[in-house]
């Protein structure tokens, strides 16, 4: 991790109608940093990372990714999305395409990579997430854990410098969570900049550089995992952690 800031949110505000989801939120993420965002449901944590690649628009404040400020100009959105991969809770694989086609589609159409090269790249990443045997299958033929690993590989095929994870294990059966987390740990060890919304506190402890605790659209507390889990400063954080640990 170095000191270069790759994601910078400054006084970001967002409303859904009259509901104030994000409240003067500021957050910097440095190159190679692993940030875990946690917090109760409805706290706006998914909204934050969805604003970073502009799946949601913020209404006030600035969001800068790799030096590009996100505005309503589609060019900036395009440039940021080129560099930012995203993994969703529900995988969102394309059901009408095979696993391999899911991976090669964006490189071929967005980056104009030749087909054979794209397929080679895809197979490399499928090997990495240990799913190369299933390249010719359709997503519906795979288990949830396998689908999520394919989704991670699909994002990696675009060679992003930043990866966003939006509750990547929340829709998985318990016995499949580990295989997905293993892939994410490996990715973290390779030095990828990661922002991850998750309730997996074990993952946060072992992998994260920084844990951000959010409630009511604001960052309540931000610290190293050891500090935040071991010695929380805010009452709201203690309350949340006690609820999480109880079960």
């Amino acid at each position: 991790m170095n000191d270069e800031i790759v994601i910078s949110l400054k006084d970001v505000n967002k409303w859904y109608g009259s509901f104030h989801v994000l409240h003067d939120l500021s957050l910097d993420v440095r190159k190679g940093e692993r940030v875990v965002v946690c917090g109760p449901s409805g706290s706006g944590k998914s909204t934050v990372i969805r604003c970073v690649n502009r799946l949601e628009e913020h209404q006030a404040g600035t969001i800068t990714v790799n030096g590009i400020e996100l505005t309503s100009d589609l060019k900036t959105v395009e440039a940021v999305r080129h560099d930012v991969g995203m993994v969703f809770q529900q995988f969102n694989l394309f059901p009408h395409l095979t696993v391999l086609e899911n991976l090669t589609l964006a490189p071929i159409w967005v980056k104009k990579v030749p087909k054979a090269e794209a397929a080679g790249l895809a197979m490399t990443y499928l090997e990495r997430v240990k799913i190369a045997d299933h390249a010719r299958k359709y997503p519906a033929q795979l288990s949830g854990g396998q689908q999520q690993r394919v989704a991670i590989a699909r994002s990696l095929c675009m060679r992003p410098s930043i990866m966003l994870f939006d509750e990547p294990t929340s829709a998985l059966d318990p016995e499949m969570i580990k295989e997905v987390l293993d892939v994410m740990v490996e990715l973290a060890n390779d030095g990828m900049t990661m922002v991850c919304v998750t309730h997996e506190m074990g993952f946060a402890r072992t992998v994260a550089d920084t844990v951000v605790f959010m409630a009511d659209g604001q960052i309540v507390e931000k610290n190293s995992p050891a500090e935040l889990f071991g010695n929380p400063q805010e009452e709201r954080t203690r309350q949340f952690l006690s609820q999480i640990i109880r079960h």
Partner: protein
Amino acid sequence: MTTEPTVGLLTVPWRWSRRHLFQSPGSSVLTLLAAWLLWKVLPSAVNWALVKAVWSGDPAACRASGGACWAFVTEKYRLILFGIYPYDEQWRPLTAIVVFVVMMLASAHPSCWRRWLIWMWAGGLVLVGILMWGGVPGLPYVSNDRWGGLPLTLILSATGIVLSFPLALLLALGRRSRLPAVRAASVAYIELWRGVPLVSVLFMASIMFPLFLPEGITVDKLLRAQAGIILFTAAYLAENVRGGLQAIARGQFEAADALGLSYWQKTRLIILPQALRLVIPPLVGQFITTFKDTSLVVIIGLYDLLSSTKMALSDPQWRAFYIEGYVVAALIYTVFTAAMSYYSQYLERRLDRDRRRS
């Protein structure tokens, strides 16, 4: 030693009929009722259509036999099939029919859904135009008010379906657009055309529209009817397509966005392939409707298959045998609509592969 249960000659049909025909008292009653109806109707129908039928000869022979007068069809089939197209040139509309059937077969298999298909249809329609109109060396000119019968039905319906489809896609996408002007225009178009019956569209195309044109400019009547059918059909197809678009989960749009696909890439590669396969049944239903609705062009003086059949029946000698005439026209329509129905079922099964788990 165990004895094998004997499988008698009737065991299999016996079991089959127990399962399918007499499973419950209710189904037994229905089976018996259907059998009784067939018993009543079938013998006399076969008797009329085959046993006592007259296959060639004059009206007097038909009247004497009391069976179906297929002799009428033998005598008039070229008029029924080709209308009043010049008799010696009727190989040209026949070739046009063959061109259409070949193009439809070539479009059927998903592995053929490539760019060349568009060029094939463009070339095929030009070829049909040259064949039908002529005016090139070796093919004398035939004005299109002499076209008729099956080729006219196929031209109007196939061209109508093929050209209305892209328009329908744009309208369906436009109706879901985030741009207010595009959305309003699409809604207005769809609601306007759906609010008018096809008959009045054809009337307007044939009678009103020429009145609005500046003097000296005329647009061919067939072309006007064809344009009316295309614009009309597109409104209905657009709503079918929109139904499919609405069924696609938001996550699919978001995943495509997150990967950096542009709007048109997302639409063409991710959304439409999924949306269209969901709405195959209503789409094919609309194709079948369009195919049959072309018979309405009779009100503006074009002679499609149904009208050319009526024309054949207007011969005073044969006027009595209208049942035979309509049976033949119905059979021709049925061949085409049944083919479309079966094709739709085949396509659904084939494209459903990815939703099955192995």
